[in-house]
C-alpha cells in the first residue's frame, strides 16, 4: 500500500451533509475512494451520494468497518467531533478545518496520540495516492500515479507542485499537505519518515515555507535517516522579514525560520535545493538520469 491510505481504505466522512463535505465526498467517491459511511448529527437515516448518513460515529462504526475518517466539521465543533472519531477507535483522521483554537488542537492531538490515532492536519488539504485513494481536496486531474512522494504545508502549494510534476510527466506515490499550522499532527519529518520506508516512493519532494522550524527539524532527520534522494524548495524567499504572511507558522523567527536558514539546513542535510517548481522538475529528471 501507499503511505497512510490505499485502494482498500474504508473511509468515514464526518460532516458529510455540509456544502463542502458533500461536494468533496462526491469528488473523492468518483476518484475511487471507498467511502462507506457519513456522519452529521440530526441527519441520520439520509444518504449522500448513495452513502448512509448516521447521527453518531459509534453508530457508523457499529455497521461498517472503518479505517480512516475525514472531518469537514466547522472549527468550533472540531474538538468534540474529533474526540468522537478517536473514541470510536478510528486510527487515521484527516482534519480539514482551519481556525480551530490552538488549545483545542493540542487536546485533539494529545488525545489522538494517547489512543494510537494518526492525525493529518488540522487545516490540511489532505492526502492523495494517485490512482488509489484520495482523502481531501487534492484536485484529481493534477496528479498521476508514480513514485515521487511530495509533502508540503500548504494545500494549494501541493496542488501547484503536483500539477507541474504531472504536466512534466512525473507521477507521484503520495502527495500530502500537512496543514498551515501553527500546530500539526503529522509533521514534515514524520511524513518523510513514512516516504523513506515506503517501497512505492523513490524520490521525496519537500516543499517548505519560511517561518517556524519544521523544515530544520526535517533536515536533521534527513541527514541522519534518509537514504532516498530529497528535493527541497522553500517558498517565501522574496517575503519581507518580520511580516506575518498568512498562517501563524509563517512568522520569521530569529535566524532559524528564514528561507536562507532553511535552505542551508536542507542543503547540508544532502537535499537537492530547488528555487522554483521548474527546478524541482529538472532536479528530479537529473536524479533519474532522464537528462543524461
Amino acid at each position: 500500500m501507499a503511505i497512510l491510505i490505499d485502494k482498500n481504505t474504508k473511509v468515514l466522512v464526518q460532516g458529510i451533509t455540509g456544502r463542502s463535505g458533500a461536494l468533496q465526498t462526491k469528488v473523492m467517491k468518483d476518484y475511487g475512494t471507498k467511502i462507506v459511511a457519513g456522519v452529521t448529527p440530526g441527519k441520520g437515516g439520509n444518504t449522500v451520494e448513495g452513502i448512509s448518513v448516521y447521527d453518531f460515529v459509534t453508530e457508523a462504526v457499529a455497521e461498517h468497518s472503518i479505517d480512516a475518517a475525514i472531518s469537514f466539521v466547522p472549527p468550533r465543533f472540531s474538538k468534540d467531533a474529533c474526540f468522537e472519531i478517536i473514541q470510536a477507535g478510528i486510527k487515521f483522521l484527516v482534519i480539514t478545518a482551519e481556525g480551530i483554537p490552538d488549545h483545542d488542537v493540542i487536546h485533539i492531538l494529545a488525545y489522538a496520540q494517547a489512543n494510537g490515532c494518526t492525525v493529518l492536519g488540522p487545516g490540511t488539504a489532505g492526502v492523495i495516492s494517485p490512482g488509489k485513494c484520495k482523502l481531501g481536496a487534492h484536485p484529481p486531474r493534477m496528479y498521476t500515479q508514480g513514485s515521487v512522494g511530495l509533502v508540503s504545508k500548504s494545500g494549494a502549494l501541493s496542488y501547484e507542485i503536483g500539477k507541474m510534476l504531472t504536466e512534466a510527466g512525473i507521477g507521484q506515490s503520495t502527495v500530502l499537505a500537512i496543514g498551515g499550522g501553527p500546530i500539526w499532527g503529522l509533521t514534515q519529518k514524520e511524513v518523510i519518515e513514512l516516504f523513506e520506508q515506503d517501497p512505492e516512493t523513490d524520490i521525496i519532494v519537500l516543499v517548505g515555507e519560511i517561518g517556524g522550524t519544521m523544515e530544520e527539524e526535517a533536515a536533521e532527520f534527513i541527514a541522519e535517516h534518509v537514504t532516498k534522494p530529497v528535493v527541497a524548495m522553500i517558498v517565501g524567499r522574496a517575503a519581507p522579514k518580520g511580516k506575518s504572511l498568512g498562517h501563524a507558522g509563517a512568522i520569521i523567527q530569529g535566524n532559524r525560520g528564514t528561507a536562507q536558514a532553511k535552505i542551508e539546513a536542507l542543503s547540508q542535510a544532502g537535499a537537492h535545493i530547488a528555487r522554483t517548481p521548474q527546478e524541482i522538475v529538472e532536479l528530479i529528471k537529473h536524479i533519474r538520469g532522464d537528462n543524461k
Partner: protein
Amino acid sequence: MKLFEFQAKRIFAQYGLPVPESDLLLSSQDLPELPFPLILKAQVLTGGRGKAGGIKICSDKKELGSLLTELFNMRIKGEPVRAVLAEEKAKINQEFYLSITLQGSKARPLIIASPAGGMDIEQVAAKTPEKIIKIPIDPLIGPQDYQIRYLAKRMGYQNKTELKNFVANLYQAFCELDATLLEINPLASTDKGLVALDGKVTLDDKANFRQEALFKELLAEQQDLPGADPASAHMSEDTITYVPLTGTVGLISDGAGTGMLTLDLIKDAGGEAANFCEMGGLTSPEIMYKAMETVLSDPNVKSLLVVLIGGFNRMDEMAEGIVKYKKVHGLNIPVIVRMCGTMEEEGKELMAQAGIPTYDDLLEAVGAAVKGAEGEADGNSN
C-alpha cells in the same frame, strides 16, 4: 491578540498572581495616586522596551512631568507609546523568568523558566542554556506536582507550595483565556513572595467564538487609549490576511504557500508585489469580493494577479466574487486570473461570460501581471 502590560497584570491579579500596585497614566499631565518612588513603564505591544529606554525610575514628583513627556514622545520599534504604567518599586531579591507557551511541532504547552530572568533572558538562553528549564505539559492532565517541584529545584526557589500555586494559577489562566503566550519577565522573588513585575499575554484570535465578551472588552480598552489605530478596531471575522508591501503588483491568492511562491516568482520576473493578500483554503464569493476591494483600494496597485488553485475552494464561487466586483466597481487596471482546480470549468465559464480571461499556467500569469504593472497590459483593463 496581544495585550498591554497593564491588561496582562489585571488578568494576572484576577487569577491570584501577585502584581505591584500601579496607576495607569494616559498623558504626561496625569498624576499617579501612588507614593513615590515609582517605576514608569511605557505601554507598547512590542518587546525590548527596557533596552529601548521605555522604563524610567521616578524618585519624586519633580521629575514626573519631564519623564512622562519623554516616554509619551518615544517610539519603541516604531510603535508609539500609548500609556504609561506607574508602579510601586518592589524590593527584589532575585529575578526569575517564567512563561507558558504552545510548542507547535510538539503540540504541547511548554513551561519555560529560568533563575536568571530580566532583560537579558535571550542572552542567557544563548550563552547558558542550562539555565533555561523547559517543561512540556501534557494538556490532558496539566502540570503535575512533581514537575513544579522539579521547577523549584532547578530555579532554586525554596517555597514550593507558593510556586506550585503560582504555576497552577498561571496554567489555569493560560487554558481559560485561550492564551498562546503568558510571559512574566522578571518574576521577582521579594520578601513578600513572588511578584509578576512584567506581563506579556497573547490570546488566540481563533477562540473568539467562545471568548467573545472578553476579547471585545480588551480590544475596546486598547482602542480607548490615545493614538489608537482604527484599522485594528475589530477582530477580523474572515480568513483574509492582508499585508501591504512596497511594489506595484497587487496579489491575491487562495493559500499562503501559493501566495509566497507567487511573491518569489514575481521577484524572479523582475516585478515587485504591492501587497500580500491571502484568502485561506476554504473561502467564498464574498471573501473573494472583499479581497479585491481591499487590494484595489491601494492606489499603488498597477496590475492585479489573482492566483487560484481550488481544492476545498470552488472556482465557480471565486469567479462569482470576481465578476460581482467587476459589475459593481469595474476594472481599471489589468487583472490577471490564474484559475484551476475544483469546479474549474464552471468558474472559467463564468469568467468568460464576464469577459475576464483566465490563465492556467502560473508562470505565464506572473509574467503577464508584472508586464501589466509596467503598463504593458495584456490583461483586460475595462
